[in-house]
């Protein structure tokens, strides 16, 4: 997927001015957080589970080499193959080779953010293999030739009318006068068309929610059942997963699964949670004859053991997106790449490299809601601050911003000067407010006052002065 993360500010402005997108984001804000809250109300043990999940992930990461080798050995024992891919290009080649060796013309795909990350579809297409997205949201986006805007609800930014329009436009063999006004009809049309692909595909490609070292199992979670049809019907099943998806045991996987759906959609458990272990066994009547797992690094090992290690705990539930005031205002596309929201603002700058997503760490008010709802307690605001610090230390970022920070640092090191300047500012701001308590236009502060009033300091005194006088 091509990144537009560099033009984050322009993207955001456009997003805020897009009424259709704003409608969709309104629906999201009304839906996911309330459903998550209701699910948690029914699970008093949530915090205990969250602490346990955090420990499971940290333990696995500390011993990741052991668990990956153990996972590989078990997959082999079950008759499957494990492939190691250092980066996206390597993973794309491995998967294409498997498809070509299988003589594949059509491959069905379950929803996979990793496949988006490595731009798998484009690569398959260029080489004569037709990928068919089977998750309804992803299928719609494939028709529209758009990237997902949310990691669990990829088409959340679209309206029903937009979906109907693209169905009419792309499903050319169907009666143009057919009624499609009801969501049910849209779904049934997609279901019927995709059934054909499920039954004829040569290869099925899915992501993985978890890799289980104990048994060599791959765990895939879906609500639609598309993941299972993708894994069961074609002759070859390929799993693409990043290395940090590993957990030691089935019990560990279970702990994480208790948190995943509740944090994501507010369901207690997703509809289908499948643990697939190797290819079809001899007495079985169905299942793939070949089972491949592609383990992807793509910069994960660089995060391991360092300041961003906690980010590798992420289970991709999207709770941080659903609760983020910035995501809810601009949606996923503005972030410019695969991973939006707070988790994306931490991850994307790392995966794309320095200078390619520098504005993303600023896409946060640091309100802390993301860490509050994170089921594996990733300190997202701290990591976002850390990204800003990295950027400053590397000498990147806007010149005005850097100048402002340097000036502030200089003043802050001289308490007398600092007190004098802030005292002056407080008086000035009070004067500008004209006694109304707020300022609607501020010189050099248009970025703030363009959209909201700036509160004026009470009685023209600094915070420190107010504190000293006991708040009087």
């Amino acid at each position: 997927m091509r990144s537009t993360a560099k033009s984050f500010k322009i993207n955001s402005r456009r997003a805020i001015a897009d009424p259709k997108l704003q409608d969709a984001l309104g629906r999201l804000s009304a839906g996911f957080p309330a459903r998550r809250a209701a699910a948690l109300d029914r699970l008093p043990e949530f915090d205990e589970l969250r602490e346990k999940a955090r420990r499971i992930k940290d333990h696995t990461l500390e011993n990741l080499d052991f668990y990956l080798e153990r996972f590989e050995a078990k997959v082999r024992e079950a008759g499957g193959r494990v492939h190691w891919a250092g980066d996206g290009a390597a993973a794309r080649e491995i998967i294409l080779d498997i498809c070509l060796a299988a003589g594949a013309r059509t491959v069905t795909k379950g929803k996979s953010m990793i496949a988006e990350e490595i731009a798998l579809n484009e690569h398959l297409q260029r080489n004569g293999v037709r990928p068919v997205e089977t998750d309804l949201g992803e299928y719609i986006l494939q028709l529209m030739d758009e990237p997902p805007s949310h990691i669990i609800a990829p088409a959340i930014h679209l309206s029903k009318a937009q979906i109907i329009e693209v169905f009419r436009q792309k499903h050319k063999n169907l009666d143009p006068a057919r009624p499609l006004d009801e969501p049910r009809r849209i779904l049934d049309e997609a279901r019927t068309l995709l059934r054909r692909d499920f039954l004829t595909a040569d290869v099925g490609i899915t992501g993985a929610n978890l890799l289980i070292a104990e048994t060599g199992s791959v765990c895939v979670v879906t609500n639609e059942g598309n993941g299972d049809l993708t894994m069961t019907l074609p002759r070859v099943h390929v799993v693409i997963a990043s290395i940090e998806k590993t957990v030691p045991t089935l019990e560990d996987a279970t702990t994480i699964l208790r948190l995943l759906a509740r944090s994501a959609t507010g369901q207690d458990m997703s509809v289908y949670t499948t643990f697939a272990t190797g290819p079809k066994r001899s007495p079985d009547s169905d299942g793939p004859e070949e089972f491949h797992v592609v383990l992807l690094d793509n910069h994960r090992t660089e995060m391991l053991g360092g300041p961003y290690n906690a980010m590798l705990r992420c289970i991709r539930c999207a709770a941080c997106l659903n609760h983020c005031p910035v995501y809810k205002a601009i949606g996923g596309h503005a972030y410019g790449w695969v991973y939006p929201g707070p988790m994306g603002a931490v991850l994307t700058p790392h995966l794309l490299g320095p200078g390619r997503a520098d504005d993303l760490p600023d896409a946060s008010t640091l309100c802390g809601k993301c860490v509050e709802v994170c089921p594996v307690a990733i300190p997202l605001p701290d990591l976002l601050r850390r990204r800003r610090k990295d950027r400053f230390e590397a000498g990147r970022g806007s010149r005005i911003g850097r100048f402002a920070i340097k000036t502030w640092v200089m003043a802050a090191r001289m308490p007398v000067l600092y007190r004098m300047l802030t005292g002056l500012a407080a008086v000035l701001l009070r004067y500008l407010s004209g006694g109304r308590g707020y300022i609607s236009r501020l010189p050099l502060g248009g970025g703030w006052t363009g959209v909201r009033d700036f509160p004026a300091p009470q009685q023209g005194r600094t915070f420190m002065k107010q504190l000293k006088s006991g708040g009087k």
Partner: protein
Amino acid sequence: MTAAREQMLEKIRASLGRGRLTVERAAELEAGLSRPGPGTVPARGRPAAKDLIDTFRKEAERVDATVDVIENMTEIPSAIKSFLDSNELPPFLKIAPEPRLQAVPWSKEPGLEAAFGPAQAEDSAALGRAFAGVAETGTLVMASGPGSPQAMNFLAETHIVALWAGDIAGAYEDAWARLRKSDKGGIGGQFMPRAVTWITGPSRTADIEQKLLLGAHGPRRLHILIILSGR
């Protein structure tokens, strides 16, 4: 290929600031895998034995499954026929070739056209047997194998599952423990069947304007028959 493998493992060790794990440490971790911790089982997953069936039923109904409780397996054919009739569904049934389901007196219900699987794309209703039920969330545990083709859980619009009451557990962990003791793997050193699927309600999507619709790619209806006696 092997080069990539070694490189990735080396990078992991370098980032963690250590070499290969010592033999002792690896043995410790290996031992941890063979005796998995108990997990944190929510109170909801530990109902009193007498409440297991009720909890399972309540939770399954919450996620839009329908549940019918019958006394013994001879009632399965008539229970299925009346379920299909009341939903105005055709009287066709594809049955998983599982020993218990094969022993059901299907001829007792002549109105029901029953045939044994595997599943075909055109099947309208399919019947399988659950390896276990999990009361915590009303979840069915399906274990694939010759008597439980995996595609049968997904292809038909109506999925009916026979669940013997004795197979209902409180929590997922109980089902894992039972599976570890079973012979479901069918190959040496592996207790896991090719596919274990937890099913919690019928297939669904909310991808169109967040409106919930049942029957996305999998079954539109999930009907669970709890059989009280036998196992």
